């Protein structure tokens, strides 16, 4: 069964056409990387799949359900439980320590925290950030922040991990570590992985690759 099916998606920002009719589908458990130069529309596509933005036309089906027909609340629940976002700029709240940042999806989703914490602690040890959980984001390095970001994304065991330039702010060593972790974690959780990147080194780690040029998929 297709996990995601994208049908003739177009997105305009004013008179600028960012996506010019995208058709694509991928199945559960697959790992995909979406490459393209800056401004090609790859992040826009990612956020449309993630329900953070709405398409100008076309349809996105998630497990055969049309995203555009979901109510605001169901869409919010989809973002909360189905999707795990790994953002380029981490988007960690400076007013909260790392643990509270990681627990944010559980709290806003009304999920019992105990099991989520156990799950987080288990992965925190694997990522080597268990001692950083009481610290605030500004006390961490870029690589550490990205690992906290990753922990937050997997905290509710999502079915789909959407990563927007997850290595964008990291050096090559840290980039490789993060990519390796993403692959391992998604495998362990059985999650589908979609990474958006312009870094060919990162893209080289994946066999399923698509490229976007001027709002169109070219391969």
């Amino acid at each position: 069964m297709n996990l995601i099916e994208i049908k003739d998606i177009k997105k305009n920002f004013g008179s600028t056409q960012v996506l010019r009719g995208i058709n694509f589908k991928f199945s559960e458990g697959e790992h995909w990387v979406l490459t393209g130069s800056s401004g090609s529309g790859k992040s826009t596509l990612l956020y449309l799949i993630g329900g953070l933005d709405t398409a100008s036309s076309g349809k996105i089906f998630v497990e055969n359900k049309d995203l555009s027909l979901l109510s605001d609340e169901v869409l919010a629940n989809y973002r909360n439980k189905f999707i795990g976002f790994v953002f380029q700029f981490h988007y960690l709240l400076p007013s909260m320590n790392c643990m509270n940042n990681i627990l944010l999806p559980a709290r806003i989703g009304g999920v019992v925290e105990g099991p989520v914490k156990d799950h987080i602690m288990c992965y925190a040890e694997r990522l080597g950030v268990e001692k950083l959980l009481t610290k605030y984001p500004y006390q961490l390095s870029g690589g550490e922040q990205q690992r906290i970001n990753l922990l937050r994304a997997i905290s509710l065991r999502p079915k789909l991990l959407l990563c927007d330039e997850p290595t964008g702010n990291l050096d090559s060593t840290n980039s490789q570590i993060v990519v390796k972790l993403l692959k391992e974690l998604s495998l362990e959780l059985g999650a589908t992985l979609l990474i958006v990147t312009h870094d060919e080194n990162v893209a080289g780690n994946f066999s399923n690759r698509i490229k976007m040029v001027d709002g169109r998929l070219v391969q």
Partner: protein
Amino acid sequence: MHSSTFSILKILLSGKNSIKFLLGIVLSFSFSITVILATIGIMDGFDVALKKGLRKAEGDLKIQYRGGFFELEQIEDKLDLHPISEITGIVRSEAFLISKDRSKGIVLRGVEPDSFNEVTKFKLELVENDIVLGHELLAELGLSIGDEVVIVFASGRGDHEQLPTLHRFKVVGDVSHGIYEKDLRYAYVNLTYIQKLFGLENQINQILLNVEGAQKIDSPAVFEKITTLGETIEDQLNGLYRAIPFWIEYGGLIEAVKVEKVSITIVLQIVVVVSIFNVLAFVMFLGETRSKEIFLVEALGISKKVMNRAWVLLLCGIWGLSCFVSFFLVEITDYGLQNLSMLELPGDVYTVSKLALFLEPKYYGIVFLISLVWVLVISAVTLYRMSRKEIIQGLRQEFS
């Protein structure tokens, strides 16, 4: 409350600055509500104090013969037909009071103490040439209990009718009507004694009476009852007597206060609007300082509906808390008005010198409701502002 709504409220109100700001907003909003409530309370309190004072001095209804003096027995059988609980006849006259080197025009009332006390709830004890003075009159003339005064009546009798008559009285007490003018002008003497002085035998020129079941001072039904009874009595006595309800003496002032209450309440909405701007400032403060949090929690799975609910709850919470605090501020104002000398009114200007707030529950309801409307307007503006931005736009803007 839904746990996610609670989480958002916790995020919005995290940090000392937000809490301090919130407390300031609640105080300023509750103060504005209190200003309106206290103003209405003072207006109604003035109205009630004035009516209480008038009723204390006049009973419910005053009946006077258009031809001057009369005997109570002349109309007693007709008055017996009506629901009258207490009745007394008095002689009312104007005179001059001379004391040491000072004199003052007064209203002298000859009263039969027992029946007069029943009608008015005064506790006068008057025999022979005793005189009880209004509280302010006693103070203004610098008199004390036991002092002697001379009352000068307009004209003498018989051969001396062109000359005033002078009579000596002994001050045995003072009374407070709660109305400054009456305290400054009224004096009471024994009815039998004054009738003897005037050669009136049993004649009087006024009747004061109370209407059965008309105890509540602020009930429109009571006013209606007294008015109707007065009209009935006038009709029954063929228009020869005038029946005057107790509030008529200050009817113009009471009406003016009523009109002023409405207009001031409308004008004071400005105070609420100013504090609403404070609430708006608080909302903007939260919107600015918590915008990262707001967009991030939306991205991580908070629906617009839950977000809106959190904002409305927050604003309604501010409103509810402000109403609660204003309730206590009104009580404190009331206590201050009754107990602090600095808040006493100058009686010569305001007729009554002491006020207590008088607030019917409906006024709390109206004022709270109006302030809620303002809060809902602010909520609508806030929600509109919040809904204008896409989540991803907000995230990029706030975290860039």
